[in-house]
């Protein structure tokens, strides 16, 4: 595994965040000040990777490395975010993402409050807005939010002073998943640039795929996508700068450094996108035979939860090349890095 430099907790504490008043403040400090992006020019939220520069992504990955070191200590606790309040607001079920954010916040010493809203309480926009306003009146620093509607965190970010982290919005984006995927690839392969990454499955409705496409493109990977035509954005064929569209599973996996399998939602079958899960598995599933076409030692990734036996065969999912559990472990470190960056900035000048 490639190791990067020093502890990010030390190095980030040395940086002086610029006092922030609303969204228009331009940061003059920090590595990203040279160009507009998330950590400069007033952007205080993490909504998707499309608005992050390579420098900014690298900053998160570098900090995550330091966070990983913290997580390996006997006493997994730092006071970096002591006195900060983080709320996780989940309008959809989640295990790994919510727990991962909670753990990340707690290791950093923040107070983490988990709020789960039943879908019935968000059937009206006003109640979402009122929920947000209620939470904000409790002086929160960071709102981690998952919502079944695409764009919900963008709406919330326009009505809140706290930093908003998108923990998955509808079929749109899941930026911290993409960041932890990038971190996992870099940890194992040393770099992302030039690596062939195959993303296979429901590209059209996958927020994981979408955020990864932005992130991998920014980091210089060579991305190939494959999936049923009913689950593929047709315009991708005209956007070779984003990804190449493969014609078969074999072509997609051929000589890949990374094979990223996506979860297939069962409701795609009832909505008419797919004939049957059996056929899906036959044509779009990853098994040991197909994995042999990839480069030796190629990484097998999956954002979870997996449908073993459908998009991925159990022997591959738990085989030597799978880094799926690493992804989960790295998720905590990456989310620590994200929380640290946003929380440290959001509260100054309050």
């Amino acid at each position: 595994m490639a190791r990067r430099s020093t502890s990010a907790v030390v190095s980030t504490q040395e940086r002086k965040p610029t006092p922030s008043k609303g969204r228009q403040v331009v940061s003059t400090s920090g590595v990203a000040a040279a160009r507009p992006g998330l950590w400069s020019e007033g952007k205080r939220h993490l909504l998707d990777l499309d608005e992050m520069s390579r420098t900014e992504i690298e900053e998160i990955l570098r900090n995550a490395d330091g966070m990983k070191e913290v997580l390996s200590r006997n006493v997994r606790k730092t006071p970096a975010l002591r006195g900060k309040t983080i709320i996780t607001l989940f309008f959809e079920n989640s295990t790994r993402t919510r727990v991962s954010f909670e753990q990340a916040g707690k290791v950093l010493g923040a107070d983490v409050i988990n709020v789960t809203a039943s879908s019935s309480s968000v059937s009206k926009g006003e109640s979402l807005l009122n929920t947000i306003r209620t939470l904000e009146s409790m002086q929160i620093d960071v709102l981690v939010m998952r919502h079944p509607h695409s764009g919900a965190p963008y709406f919330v970010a326009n009505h809140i002073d706290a930093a908003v982290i998108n923990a998955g919005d509808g079929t749109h984006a899941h930026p911290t998943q993409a960041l932890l995927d990038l971190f996992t690839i870099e940890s194992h392969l040393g770099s992302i640039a030039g690596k062939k990454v195959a993303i296979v499955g429901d590209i059209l409705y996958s927020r994981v795929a979408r955020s990864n496409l932005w992130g991998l493109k920014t980091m210089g990977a060579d991305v190939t996508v494959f999936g049923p035509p009913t689950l593929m954005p047709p315009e991708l064929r005209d956007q070779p700068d984003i990804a190449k569209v493969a014609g078969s599973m074999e072509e997609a996996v051929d000589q890949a450094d990374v094979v990223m399998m996506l979860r297939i939602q069962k409701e795609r079958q009832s909505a008419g996108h797919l004939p049957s899960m059996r056929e899906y598995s036959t044509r779009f599933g990853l098994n040991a035979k197909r994995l042999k076409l990839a480069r030796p030692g190629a990484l097998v990734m999956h954002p979870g939860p997996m449908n073993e036996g459908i998009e991925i065969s159990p022997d591959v999912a738990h085989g030597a090349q799978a880094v799926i559990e690493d992804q989960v472990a790295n998720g905590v470190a990456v989310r620590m890095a994200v929380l640290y960056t946003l929380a440290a900035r959001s509260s100054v000048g309050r």
Partner: protein
Amino acid sequence: MADNSKGIAIVGGRVIDPSQDIDRLATVLIKDGVMEEVTAKPLAKAPDSYDVIDVAGQVVTPGFIDVHTHLRDPGEEHKETIETGTMAAARGGFTTICAMPNTVPCQDNANVIEAVLKRASEVGLVRVLPIGAITVGRHGEQLADMAELAAAGVIGFSDDGDPVADPNLMRQALSYASGLGLPIMNHPQEPALTRGAQMNEGPIANRLGLTGWPNEAESSMVARDVELAALTGGRLHECHISARQSIDAIRRAKERGLNVTAEATPHHLTLTDTWVLGEHGDDNGVVRSGAYDTSTKVNPPLRTQDDVDALIEALADGTIDLIATDHAPHAITDKLCTYQEAANGIANLETAFASVLSLHHRDAVSLPVLIERMTAAPARFLGMDIGTMKKGSTADITIFNPDLDWTVDPSEMATLGKHTPLAGTQMKGRVTTTIFGGKVIWDIAAVAPIG
């Protein structure tokens, strides 16, 4: 403000009345609420019997007619009332508006029609012509009492907001209404192709993770409707056409000599789906916090530039017969939410004319053609002697300054619906005076200095 006991003389303006092929500098004389004369001669005789409105540099036309307005009254008076809706119409230059039936209760029976007409008459600002529902409750199952509705004064039938999805019911509706001489105004949208749809299907929808509404969901129903119009000989009107493919279907129907008309809205003629990205349609390749702008959510959705170009071309050549607003006011909270939750519709009576005037400013459609599509063409559709300055016709007049720069400020709009993607947008050209039945009902100078 004009004294109604006197006449009104509108002097110094460019008069455009497409119903009479008039486009010249002229004086317009109104007496006793009706058109007296449009004359090139200077005002000489008995000037004391006229209030003079000097409109040098402005354009004088028949009052605009909107065949597709949502007034929400009765039942949703928090969104709009007949009073606020007709005030918005007056400010937008409309002297006649046709009220869509999706009220609560629905305009599917004579009682509701009579109530709407009575209320509109009490308010007395502009002419309100109700549209009856095609089916009971707009449920798409059983025809409403169409003859009774016709007797009560409806100008056509629509289940607007909902298509008549059942082809047999559509066939019967066209056939039955043909006996009444009234059009079926269908909202073409194949439901099975638009389940959960939120915006135009395409790269921007995919980028935003929003469910797409494909052009073909519209054009396939237009094509079906055209065949049913041919089968029945009924009068078919297609509402708010947005897709290039639909225009092709309507063009072919007209070539076959079928009794088919179609309308387009100001927003579909001028805006594209890039506006959903926010920043007034600036597509910089990144989804920014202004994206998912719910004020852009409308049904049918804003389409691509290719569709807009096709729509403008069709408006110019008459394939699209007329401009209709689809003014759709909602409560603020109906748009203060996620895109998926947001109500469809744009409140646009007060911006509609400035929007379409931009087509003239960039030489896409000539001014007389534009005016024709908002006056003579809808009057022809209604079969009424309005939208004209012919001697003896009712004096409905709209005066606009084509070069007046102004900025859209929803808080200044009369409509209760404050949602428009044009908020903060610079517009060029604005209605300055609206006259209904010889009475000045809107005068911008009375509320704000011009310029």
